[in-house]
């Protein structure tokens, strides 16, 4: 989008707001909204395996993930690439669980392919300091085998932000509970069926941003032997 078009869009938005159309303001969750948000992680759990794509802004460039995550088995499997780079160290296959990451460096690998048997390197998953690892952990934790407590969400700082759409599907945006003094926050894009379509994350340590899109109905992940 050119700067001029962008400006025009901004002006149009201002006009829309100015002429008194009923655009709801962000607000604390109603009980019904809290019940909806409370179901998001459980709905992911029921989904089982979802396709995921993610963009993570890091100090070393924008990382792109493309693959899937199994919310029940706590297992993810993606191809990693770095925008603007084509050296072998900038890309690879990643499989991870709650505590460990297996990485297979190299360009041209796809998460949809059969699992290569060799050349994997195993390392611990870091719970802080790495935007990539924090995102990987987030991807496993955005599911739970039971609904969250709607009453507690209702009493929390969680907010409804606005309506929008993802790929033509109408969604509501909910900001999850925040902790005082912490930059970390999550924004859930939730469709009418309660499914999580997108997650915007401001990551705790660095304030770096990640955007993750979810599509339900992915096939199972062939596990690396370290995760069986």
């Amino acid at each position: 989008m050119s700067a001029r078009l962008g400006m025009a869009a901004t002006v149009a938005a201002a006009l829309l707001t100015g002429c008194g159309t009923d655009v709801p303001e962000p607000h604390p969750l109603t009980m019904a909204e809290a019940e909806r948000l409370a179901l998001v992680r459980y709905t992911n759990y029921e989904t089982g395996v979802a396709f995921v794509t993610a963009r993570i802004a890091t100090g070393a460039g924008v990382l792109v993930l493309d693959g899937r995550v199994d919310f029940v088995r706590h297992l993810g499997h993606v191809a990693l690439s770095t925008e603007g780079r084509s050296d072998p160290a900038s890309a690879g296959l990643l499989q991870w669980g709650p505590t460990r990451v297996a990485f297979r460096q190299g360009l041209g690998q796809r998460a949809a392919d059969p699992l290569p048997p060799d050349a994997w390197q195993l390392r611990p998953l870091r719970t802080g300091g790495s935007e990539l690892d924090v995102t990987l952990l987030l991807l496993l934790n955005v599911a739970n085998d039971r609904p969250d407590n709607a009453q507690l969400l209702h009493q929390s700082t969680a907010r409804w932000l606005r309506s929008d759409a993802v790929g033509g599907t109408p969604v509501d945006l909910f900001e999850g509970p925040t902790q005082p003094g912490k930059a970390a926050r999550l924004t859930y894009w939730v469709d009418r069926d309660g499914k999580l379509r997108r997650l915007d994350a401001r990551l705790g340590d660095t304030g770096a941003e990640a955007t993750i899109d979810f599509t339900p109905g992915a096939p199972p992940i062939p596990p690396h032997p370290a995760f069986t």
Partner: protein
Amino acid sequence: MRAAWICALCLLATGCGAGAEPPHATVIQVPGDAGSIQQAVSAARPGDLVLVAPGTYRESVRIGTRDVVLRGADRNRVIIDGEVRRANGVVVTAPGVAVENLTVRNHTLNGVLATGMSDGAGGLAHGSSGYTRLDPAAFPPLQGFRVSYVTASNNALYGIYAFDARHGVIEHSYASGSADSGIYVGQCKPCDVLVTGNVAERNAVGFEGANASGALFVLGNRFSGNRVGLTSGSDYQEALVPQEDATIAGNLIAHNAEPATPAQADGAFGLGIGIAGGRRNLVARNLIIGNPGAGITLASSEDLPPSGNRLLANMLRDNGIDLVYAASARAPGAGNCLSGNELRTTLPATLVELMPCPAGSAPAAGVAAPRVVAPPGMAFRAVPAGPAQPNRPDGPPVAARGLPGRVDADAVPLPAETLLIERSGITW
């Protein structure tokens, strides 16, 4: 039919001028006399019967009036459905209330909850969900409750949950598909609670007693086909530590390695009975079979040892290990004793000699309990429903007073493998 005996009762009561009794027990029919179960319950006076016709009721019911009996006309067809939106099916916060002959399913917390932790307006005090450390001084226990012939299916926390509640009975009920325990009794001392004739299967845990002490009787139940059959122990997340003086007798604890169940929070699988940080419990005449991890484990809970527990005349077979003593070095137990049990394998191997009755074991740590790798859990809503369950025999409403009465645990025999099999959907 039901209205007829109520009237007969009224006439008799009026005729003999029994002033101490309520003048009559009104029957409030749902939907005939009230648009919802809650409306009926709110209109009920002590001693009244709220009788619910078959149907699916999409509401959460709170009972804050003492001595009310809430009864379904057909246990399998009176369904309070939380639609995985509402927290609890039925919440009892008044003494003497009975919940009978109905089904509660698909709640994000509990099917039926009885508790003294009320906010005074019939609702629940803040923080009353899940593991909660209550303040017993601020919230004195509920006195008297009964849950009878209730089917609690596919609830995200507990099927039937009593905490901060005393003098109660949970009987002839069926709990399945709970992401945590099918039946849970917590935070009472002394409890004076009887849990009997129930089936809990396809739950993460069949029955759980946490900080439930003193005259807690768990007798003649079928806790089979869960991930874990039964636990009794101490939990610092809740009030009234340590757990002590429960009687667990005459139960069938079999094949607790059912994969089509929600995951247990700690990843446990294949365990029959687990006592963690419990004292002076009596575990007697239970049939404990086919649990691939261990039949019974005695373990510590943080700094609380398993001490003074008596295991008498249990029959254990086909378990991974029949009996494991797993007390930690931090909290080694003492005074545990074994007598008359039929078992083949123990860890340590000489437990039978180490734990004579009545002398009990010398202070000692045990060994790490063997762990069975748990299969992935199942969403609680996806757990298959159990078979149709028998209805409560017809009869007048009786408030939950004077419970559980005299309990003769010694009279409860070692069960057969077929105990309550007609109410079970699990085969092996």
